Structure formats: C-alpha cells, structure tokens
C-alpha cells in the first residue's frame, strides 16, 4: 500500500527541479497534501493563500497567464465543489491565441466516499461530473501511486488545464513501473471475453479482485483502468463492447455524470451494449472511521462482490 499524496509531492519536487516555471499553490492544506515539501525546496515558487479556494484558483490562473505552470491543490470538496466559477471562467475559458484554456493543473486529494470520518460534507461525489462538463478541461482519476507519478509528469509537459483527483487512503499498486500513460487512452489490466469492468481510482483494485472471483466461476472478465475520464478512450470501450458484449462501470462518485456516464455516452454512440453503473446512487455519504470505510463503500455497492453480482446479472441481458 502506498500514499498518493506523498507520491504527488515527491513528483512535484522532481519536475520542479527540471522546470523552473513549475509553481505550487495551496490553501491551508499544504501539510496534508504534503506540498509544503516543495515550498521548502523552492520557497519563492510556493504560495499558500490560506483558506480561500476561489483566490487559489484565480491566482493560479494569473501565474499561468504569465508563463508559469501552476499546480494548485487542496481537498476535492473545496475545489470543484466550491470554486467552479473561478475554474470555469478563470482557467478553462480564457484561451490565448492557438491554445485552449490556461495552463493550470488542479490536483486534489480526498476524492469520493473513501474520505471516511469527516463525513458527507467532505465526500466529493460530484467533481467528475462538474469537471467533465467544463470545456477544455481534461480529467484524470489515478488508481495508484504509479499513476500519480506518471500523470503528474505528463500534465507538467502537456499544455492546458487538467483536473486530477487522488484518494485520501493508501492504495495498493496495480500498475507496473513500466506502464505507459497517455491522455485519452485507457489501460487493459486484464483481458477477458465474457464481460468488461471499467473502473477508476480505488475501484480498479476491486475490479481486479472481482475478475479473479469470476474467473473461478468460469467467467472471463476484462478489466479496464479508465483513469482518463476525459477524454475517454472511445475505441478501447468500443472494442470491449464488441468483444465482451456488456460493461459494468465502477467509481466512488455519483452515478449521475461520473465516469460511468462517460462510458455509457461513448458506448451508446459507438456500439451499444448493456451497461450497469456502480457508484453512489444519487445519494450522499456519511462518516465512517478508517476501518469502517469498506462498510460505507459497501452501503453504496462499491465492492468487488457487487461487481461480481452485477456482471452476472448484466450478462443475461446481452442481446
């Protein structure tokens, strides 16, 4: 198990050494996000604006407008959830000649229900829907620390606005160090021919476990890491639809507008097959101590067992 925030902070320092234009901003969560380490190494390129998320976003935009590559970070609930106007009108909309949006990277921690004890007020289950709907933004949901490191590297080199959502809890490593990450390209973690589970974030590991269980029951399940929710990998999904005939999606997000919606939109247009979306069923989360987080997720059906169940049900709906 390894910690996404630690990996994020470590990678920031690496890219900060390579690129003097990288700057990091926080809003009184820099210890929690561990970005304060960047501030120690590069004190004049690190800005803590206090508990002022709108200001955080707009100051980042101004830095980007002057050629800097800002990484602005706090908890998920306080960025898309609070500062959507500053994100939309301040980062996504302003487009210098020949470019789309300003070069700001919004990287958040504490996405989804697995935030745990802080409760429903702090469990951001709408951010994918919000960020996906804003033109010019690209949206990543990494499954592990390998993804975090590679995606931060990728974002720092690719011009434009990005949103990346990390989980609060430590996560198992699902990708090999040599795994390549490309914008708009999902990753096939396990091949299969009877059905597909498309997952993102902490549910990727669950999907692998589900596939293992299904394998024992003689069902061949494909597992996709759809870390790039926007742009979504339409051709990988189409291939899965053609070859496996049904898709179950899984995410710790409202099923309305999340990764599952993105998959359904794409598949419906390209090669319609039965789809089942796992996630919060349009309801909020609640407090759960760290060891109770699996119970909270279970309440919302976000478990490998529910994936197994849904795969079995949806297979019967194949045409």
């Amino acid at each position, binding site marked *: 198990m390894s910690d996404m925030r630690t990996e994020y902070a470590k990678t920031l320092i690496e890219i900060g050494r390579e690129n003097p234009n990288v*700057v990091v901003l926080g809003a009184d969560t820099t210890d929690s996000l561990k970005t304060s380490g960047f501030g120690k190494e590069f004190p004049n390129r690190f800005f803590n604006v206090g508990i002022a998320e709108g200001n955080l976003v*707009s100051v980042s935009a101004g830095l980007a*407008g002057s050629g800097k590559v800002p990484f602005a970070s706090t908890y998920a609930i306080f960025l898309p959830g609070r500062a959507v106007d500053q994100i939309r009108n301040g980062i996504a909309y302003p487009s210098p000649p020949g470019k789309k949006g300003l070069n700001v990277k919004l990287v958040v921690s504490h996405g989804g229900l697995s935030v745990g004890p802080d409760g429903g007020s702090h469990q951001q289950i709408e951010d994918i829907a919000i960020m996906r709907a804003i033109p010019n933004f690209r949206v990543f949901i990494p499954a592990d620390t390998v993804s975090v490191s590679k995606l931060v590297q990728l974002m720092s080199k690719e011009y434009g606005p990005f949103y990346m959502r990390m989980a609060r809890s430590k996560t198992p490593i699902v990708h090999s160090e040599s795994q390549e990450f490309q914008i708009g390209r999902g990753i096939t973690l396990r091949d299969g021919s009877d059905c597909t589970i498309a997952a993102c974030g902490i549910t990727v590991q669950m999907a692998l476990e589900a596939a293992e269980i299904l394998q024992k029951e003689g069902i061949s399940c494909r597992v996709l890491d759809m870390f790039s929710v926007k742009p979504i990998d339409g051709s990988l999904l189409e291939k899965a639809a053609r070859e496996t005939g049904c898709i179950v999606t899984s995410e710790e997000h409202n099923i309305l507008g999340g990764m599952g919606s993105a998959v359904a939109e794409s598949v419906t247009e390209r090669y319609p097959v039965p789809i089942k979306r796992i996630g919060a069923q349009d309801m909020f989360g609640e407090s759960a101590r760290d060891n109770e987080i699996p119970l909270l997720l279970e309440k919302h059906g976000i478990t490998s067992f529910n994936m197994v169940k849904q795969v079995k049900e949806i297979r019967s709906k194949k045409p």
Partner: protein
Amino acid sequence: MGLNYYHIKKNVLRARKLVIKSTSLAGSGHPGGSFSMAEILGCLFYKFLKFDPKNPSWEDRDRLVLSKGHAAPGLFSNMAVAGYFPESEMESLRKFGSKLQGHPDLKCPGVEFCGGSLGTGLSYSIGIALAAKIDTKDHHVYTIIGDGESDEGQIWEAAMTASKYKLDNLTAFLDRNFIQQDSYTEQVMPLDEELTGNNISEMWKDASRWKTGDKWRSFGWNVIEIDGHRIEQIELAITKARATKGVPTIIISRTVKGKSIEHMEDNPQWHGKAPDLDIVPLINLELDSQFMIAPSIIAGDMTNLANEVKRCASGRADYIHLDVMDGKFVPTKTFDHSKIKELRPLTVIPFDSHLMIAEPVKHVRDYAEAGSDIITVHAEVCDDSSFGEIHDYLKQNQVGVGLAINPDTDIPEWSYKFLPTIDQLIVMSVVPGKSGQKYIPETHEKMNKITSILQEQKFTGYIEADGGVNLENIESCFEDGARAFVGGSAIIGKPDVRESIRDFRNQILKARRKTLIKKAHQLGGAELVNKWIGLHVVGEKKDQLAKIAKEEKLI
C-alpha cells in the same frame, strides 16, 4: 515633463465617443461604468503603461487587468485609440464572430484577462505580480476593480494575499462610482455606510462618511484617495504608487457613473443599457461640449500670488491661468518663470501659462521646466520657424501647446499646418496688458470667422475665451465655440472663488443645455426634444431642461 494633459483629454474624448458608438450599435453594453473609469484608463494608456500594439504579448509590457469586466467597451475603445486595432472595429462589439466580446476576452490580442465573473481580477493580478517577482521583471500590474464588485468576498481574499506577498508591483484602482446594477452601492451593500434617503451625491460630498479607505488600510495596503476624473490627481497617485515599496497600493478614485453625459451621470439605469441611436448625435455633441474653467490669478492680490493659487485649488478650478507679461510685448510686467516654479508645489492643478512676452522661443524651456502643463505663446511674436520649434519642444516634453491671437490679429496662415496638433487657441477678447478690462463685443463676429477656418484645418483643441469673461457674456462665448474660460476679476476678484466658479459652471451648463435642446429640435422636432428631456431623471434636471425648451418655444 508636463502632465500631457490635453493629449490624454483628447484621447479620453475619442474613447468615450467610441463607447457610445459601439454600445448603441450593439444595442446593449455598459456605458456608465466605462465612463466612470475613462480618465483612469486615459492616464494609464497615454502616460504610464508600457505596451506595443504591434506586439501585444511583448514580455516586458505592463499589465492592465480590467476586473470590472462589464466595462469592456471602455477598455476596447482605448485599445482602439492606442492602435491595437482600427477604431472602425468597435462597430463589431458584442456581435457574432467579433473579437470584441461582451466582456474582455483573450480573443482580442492585448487583453490580459477574461473578465465577466466579478471579484476574480485582483487575484489574477496577484498571479501576474508573483510571476514577475519570481522572474525579477520590473513590469507593473494595474488592476481596476469596481465598488459593486467589492461585495465579492474574493476581493478581500486577494487584498490579504497581495499584502502578505508585499506586491509593490501591483496597483489597484477602485472605480468608486457609488452605483451597481440594482441601485446605489450604499443601498445594496454599503462600502462606506448605509445611505438613508435617495441622494447619492450627499455621500459623494461628505468625506467624513467614507470608510472604504480604512478598510483597505487595515488590510495593509497603501491607500491613496483621489477624484478619479482629475487627470492631475490620477497622475500624481500613480507616481506615488510606483514609488511605494513593500506594499501594494490602491487608488480609491471617487468617480461619477456615466461621467460627461448629464442624463447618465449618477443614474443607476445606465449601468447596463445602451443609448438609442437617435440620441447618439446629441450625446456626441454633449461630449464635444465639455468645458473647463481657469481662474487668472493676476486679477487677485499680486503681492500674494501663493494665496491666489490656494484659492483656486480650494475653489476647484480645472486649471490655473498664469499671465506672464514682460513689459516688452505688452507694456505691463507681471512675473516670470521663477514665480511659476515657486508656485508649482502648492497644487497639482494644471498650470496654464499664457506668455505675453517677446521672443517666446528663447524662453519657452524655462516655462516648461518651471512646471507649466500648457504653454500658450502669441502669434504676433512667432513665425513658422520659431513656433515650429516651440511646438515640437513642448510636445516632446508632454506640455500642451497653445497659440494666442490679439483682438486685432487674424489666425496667421503660417499656423495652419500646426492647427491639427495645437491643443489650445486663445482668442483674446481684450487688448492684453492688464486685468479688469471689458470684453470686446466684436469678438463674437471674429469667432464665427475663426470657427470655419478651424474646421477646415482640422483643429481638435480647445478654444479658450480670455479677457473680460463674466456671467453676462459667458453664454455667448460658449455659443461661439469656447470650451475653456479664463475668469479674472469675475472669479478671482470675488471673495468666494468656489462660489464664483460654481456660478460660471452653472451658466455654461445652461448654455450647453440650450445648445443640446436646439440640436434635438433640429434633428427630431419636439418629439426628440421631449425624449431628450425625459432621459434626465436624476434630480431637478428634467424640470430645468423643460423650462429652457419652453423658453425657446421648442415644446
């Protein structure tokens, strides 16, 4: 260096006209807030900002962020005047396919910030200022925020942040026009204190009620409070802001929404409404009829001119007229440049030095260096070559160029080629030499003749009426085309300078209203006259205009 007073004033006028043209053609837009910040933008664009319209993304340019983005027509029109794009392109404002969007947008090269959602531009400016600090660049960031916009909490988040990071490369202007979309700011969300009653000018006048400066001071900013329509005050404020180290500066500029157009001034209706096309010619005529009053201090106590300057300043003169006489060109002697230098520190009000001296070409440098902002020399003692030298020298030093003619002098033909760039023409209505003479009535006839020459030669400056101007003849001076009025014994000679300047203003205002009503009648008969009068909803204006129209038998 002079203030570049007339240069700024002329460009501000051009920009205001473009705001009217573009919003009226678009059928929507925000002229009120564009006009309240017009002089601020004028001073920035034509005096302080480093920029290159041919290379809008020049790295070392100063940055101008219009946080109150709805005033986009004001920004765009100045960009047009400054040469970023042809003025004709203003006609595309707010139309499909135009780079001139309803709010400032990067689609238009040279625009720094996509405004529209209020409260975010100051934070954006902080980002620019921080980047400049990282890169050790010395360009400056100027940001204009609105008072309605200051309802947004993010303004105060930004206020704290700029202070924390000691951003002395950031200067903000608060366009304090006291009006936001719904109503007066002090009714919607008071920045100073809640307005009881409905007369916003009460708040404007009473400095003891202003709290906004205290707010910003308590956030750690250097605060400068000015009249945001006075070029000389804006220039001094920016100069002070640039010299302040270790803290950001905010220039709280008291302004009038819709400034220059009577029916728009202080009228919340003109926050976000475009003028109808049929009244545009009237608005343009009103813009062309802005006027200034310059008391002439030699009409006062010659033994205490410093006190006369102070009386002018407290009387709110637009500029101060200084009659320099050398005892050669005219028989009398008053003072020379050393006196002007001595008086200069007493006020920032522009000095309008009228040199009634022989061989002005030999002395003009002394008068510029003494701190004159406008220097007028006499045609009788100049020729093509010497005036050319004076003209070029003054332009280079940002001092206004004036030419004066005596009652028995015609505009000399050699001066025609300078007329398009001369800032001020003084048509003497007394024989120069001493104060207190009577206005020569033939001047009116002469003015008629001159006006046609000036039109032919594309003169765009101000005509200054000088000599025996008083409340009785000022109306006809205005009708003759004068837009600057020197008041000697009629102002300085009176015990209360402020009151006599106010009387001058009211009398000229009456003449202007009459001119506009006549124009309305000429263009659209009684119907347009009534429409024009009906627009003047604030205060007593409507009744006063109706009275004039009835007197003139136009309604």
